């Protein structure tokens, strides 16, 4: 079986884009699913975003320049899709006074294994503003270097570090004051 890491992706895309795309779907769907779900919490929303991400990957495959690893490129698309989703949900709930998304997400915290601190940690992360939430998840769970996060979110590295610092403080306060 062909492994995506063994391929010269840029060249292979020109020869057989279908093969490259199938390998991306099979090799990275699980990792992308986990990263997206950490941000949007519910399975249904994660599924929608992941499908949209894969569709965008397919449509833009020919524009992959090979400047980064193919996973980083796919991850970047997934993160941007998640950010768009969070912003639209926030706008919608603000305009319609609709808390359905927040309530559905909170119900999902009950399924999290572990002690009360783990559940509170998830809730605190969920309550962060969209960009802070992304920065925190990318750094804390996905362990992406600040420099790379800055490139993905098109912000400067110093700003990203500050966002991460604020996020950790907010989470600590939320857990300690609850």
């Amino acid at each position, binding site marked *: 079986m062909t492994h995506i890491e063994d391929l010269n992706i840029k060249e292979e895309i020109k020869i057989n884009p279908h093969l490259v795309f199938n390998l991306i779907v099979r090799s990275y769907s699980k990792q992308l699913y986990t990263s997206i779900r950490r941000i949007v919490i519910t399975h249904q929303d994660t599924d929608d975003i992941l499908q949209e991400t894969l*569709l965008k990957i397919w449509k833009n495959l020919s524009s992959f320049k090979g400047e980064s690893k193919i996973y980083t490129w796919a991850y970047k698309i997934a993160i941007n899709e998640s950010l768009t989703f969070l912003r639209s949900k926030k706008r919608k709930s603000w305009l319609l006074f609709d808390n359905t998304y927040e309530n559905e997400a909170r119900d999902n915290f009950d399924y999290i294994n572990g002690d009360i601190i783990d559940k509170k940690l998830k809730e605190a992360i969920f309550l962060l503003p969209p960009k802070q939430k992304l920065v925190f998840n990318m750094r804390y769970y996905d362990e992406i270097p600040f420099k790379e996060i800055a490139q993905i979110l098109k912000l400067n590295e110093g700003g990203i570090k500050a966002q991460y610092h604020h996020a950790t403080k907010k989470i600590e306060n939320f857990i300690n004051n609850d």
Partner: protein
Amino acid sequence: MKNSKFSFSEYKKKDDSEDLKAPEGYYNELENNVRNKISSSNKQSFINSLIPIASIASVIIFVFVFINKKYDSDTNDSNTDWLSYIDEDIEEQNYISITDELTEEELNAIYEDFISAN
């Protein structure tokens, strides 16, 4: 940790990937859904690419039909109908020219003849 304050420096990070696992059989379903979305998006882009061609074609057909009809109506007019227009014009012109030529006295005479006759 319950009574002490929570701090990231003391907290041992937990691997949460088990909590975030997708339902059984999800990834096969995902592959099928993505394949279907791609094929319907390809169809949609094909339809979208046809829209400008169809618009141009419909304009050409419309112009062709319009010119053809105009040509037909022009040729029909030149055969017969224009004669009746000319006849009407001549009658109208004659009427105007006859009445314009009468003097006031002649008109009075015609009027008196008309009165006496009735």
